């Protein structure tokens, strides 16, 4: 029995604290401090001559010019940032919905009916984790070229009369690319969850007269709501910061997302505070989404328990 106080317990506490210390310091230095630096740069000014940012560390010195610029571009209708933010939300919403439509049946099949093929099927589901996202996009660049296999096949079947240019400003290419890139990250948690569902619950539902479809609709689906939401969140978050998928599969301003704007402002050099302000706005929006998600899931879990 470990004592709750006294020198032995205190020594133990100190030991665990010492063990955690390097990691805590690391996170403070390279995760917490950098967030403050983003704020400092976003609320700072720019050197008038060499155009480098002059961060403002003291909140009393904060200057809201970069935020005014971003907010202005967000609220006046049809302004650049507004278009980009709306487009990002639409792309992410469509891509997440499509991913769910693909991920759920696949995860369900492998979890419930995988049988002796489960190992092999899982290998197929896990393989994309070891293939770099950029390589998977490169594969689609190859396929979607004007003389690529996608055009060859579509023309041969007769869906297209002539080869189409896929890689220049097409929303569909970008969205399909995102779905292709992120869907594996949604399948696995869904699989892990569905694999754990107690089969007795389904048997009980069937014994009580439910058809297989009813058992699915009344037992499996409600149970999997938290897993579905978690799967949506883990792919939506990286999508909101994505700029490489539109750059690689479109490269046109017509498909520019929030991530592209951040990348342009931060690396373009002239208006880094605007880039930092965009990062802050993105984080605030994601924080609202996450808070909503945490509330919904905890409510769903309470309902399942009670």
């Amino acid at each position: 029995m470990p004592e709750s106080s006294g020198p032995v317990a205190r020594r133990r506490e100190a030991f665990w604290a010492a063990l955690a210390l390097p990691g805590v310091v690391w996170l403070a230095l390279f995760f917490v401090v950098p967030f403050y630096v983003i704020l400092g740069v976003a609320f700072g000014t720019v050197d008038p001559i060499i155009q480098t940012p002059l961060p403002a560390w003291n909140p009393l010195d904060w200057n809201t010019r970069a935020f005014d610029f971003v907010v202005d571009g967000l609220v006046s209708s049809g302004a650049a940032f507004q278009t980009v933010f709306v487009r990002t939300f639409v792309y992410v919403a469509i891509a997440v919905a499509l991913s769910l439509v693909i991920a759920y049946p696949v995860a369900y099949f492998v979890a419930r009916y995988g049988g002796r093929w489960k190992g092999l099927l899982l290998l197929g589901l896990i393989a994309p984790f070891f293939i770099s996202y950029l390589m998977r996009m490169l594969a689609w660049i190859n396929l979607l070229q004007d003389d690529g296999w996608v055009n060859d096949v579509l023309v041969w079947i007769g869906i297209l009369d002539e080869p189409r240019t896929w890689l220049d400003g097409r929303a569909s290419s970008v969205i399909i690319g995102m779905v292709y890139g992120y869907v594996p990250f949604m399948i696995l948690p869904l699989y892990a969850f569905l694999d754990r569902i107690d089969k007795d619950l389904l048997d009980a539902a069937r014994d009580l007269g439910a058809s297989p479809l009813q058992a699915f609709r009344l037992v499996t689906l409600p149970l999997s709501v938290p897993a579905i939401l978690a799967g949506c969140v883990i792919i939506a978050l990286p999508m909101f910061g994505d700029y490489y998928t539109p750059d690689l599969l479109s490269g046109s301003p017509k498909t520019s997302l929030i991530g592209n704007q951040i990348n342009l402002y931060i690396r373009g050099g002239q208006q880094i505070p605007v880039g930092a302000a965009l990062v802050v706005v993105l984080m605030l929006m994601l924080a609202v989404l996450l808070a909503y998600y945490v509330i919904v899931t905890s409510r769903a879990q309470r309902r399942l328990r009670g």
Partner: protein
Amino acid sequence: MTTATATATARPAPTAARRFRDWWANPWGKPRFLVLFTLAYLVWSIVPILIAIRFSFNEGRSRSTAQGWSFRWYTEDPDLSVLHDPDLSAALLQSLKLAALAVAITVPLGVALAIGLTRWRGRVAGTSRYVSLVPLVTPEIVMGVALLLVFVHVLTFIPLGTPAQAIGHVTFSLAFVLIIVRSRLLSIGAEYEEAAQDLGASPLQALRLALLPMLTPAFVASAIVVFAISMDDFVVSAFLSSGTNTDTVPVRIYGAGRTAPTPALNALATLTLAITIVIAAAFFAVWRLVLARRGRRGATLGEFAEIDDAYAKATRLTER
């Protein structure tokens, strides 16, 4: 008798189409729509990669049509092959270097952090437990910008390039080690260390003799995951790169993906994939061995799904 044999032999052997129809019409089989859907998904997910690999062996310069077979873009071309184009070979080395550094730093740091945070009860521990999960819900571009600005404006003694990139990789992979080790710690419980300490062991001895051996599978799983996400990383490597000599493979693919004139980029991606798979498989073999020696069921690929599931749950940022 003879007529019966004749009719039996006269029945035609089932053709593939016939067998498919029988299977489709069998009401006791697996749900047929789901079988086809899953197979279609797997084909869609894997075939583009196989085609990209196939183009890397092209004899000609096309990246979109098959043109014979050769190792031209790997070794043979005197200027443009992965072996002879310094930008391409440097990218592969940089990716491997960063992945090795990330594994070597993140695994010990993350394991110590996970054990410390699970057992330590102070107020700082509560906050740290919460903060340590936030990287999991931070889009990479946010982390990339944050680290770039911190290295440019505050920690100016850390140069961009390999040092900054390695720090970035450790920072975003730390949380993954944390969730892997923590879920293992929760399943072990505190009893073993307490028993060791009741028998007179110091906390350090209890840790070394009782806890660490039981955590070995979590070390190996962490190493695989950190290695894979470090090799995969694009955004942080790109933001913290100091120039072409510190570009990683994904950064190179991004830079040249749309403009690359030859399949050498496909060859680079294929080589990277092959190396990643060999190293991950080696780790996985070690993992199975470790588990088998402990008398547990052999490690299955399902454990990866568990890790991703733990990740999905950690997005709720709530402690169990």
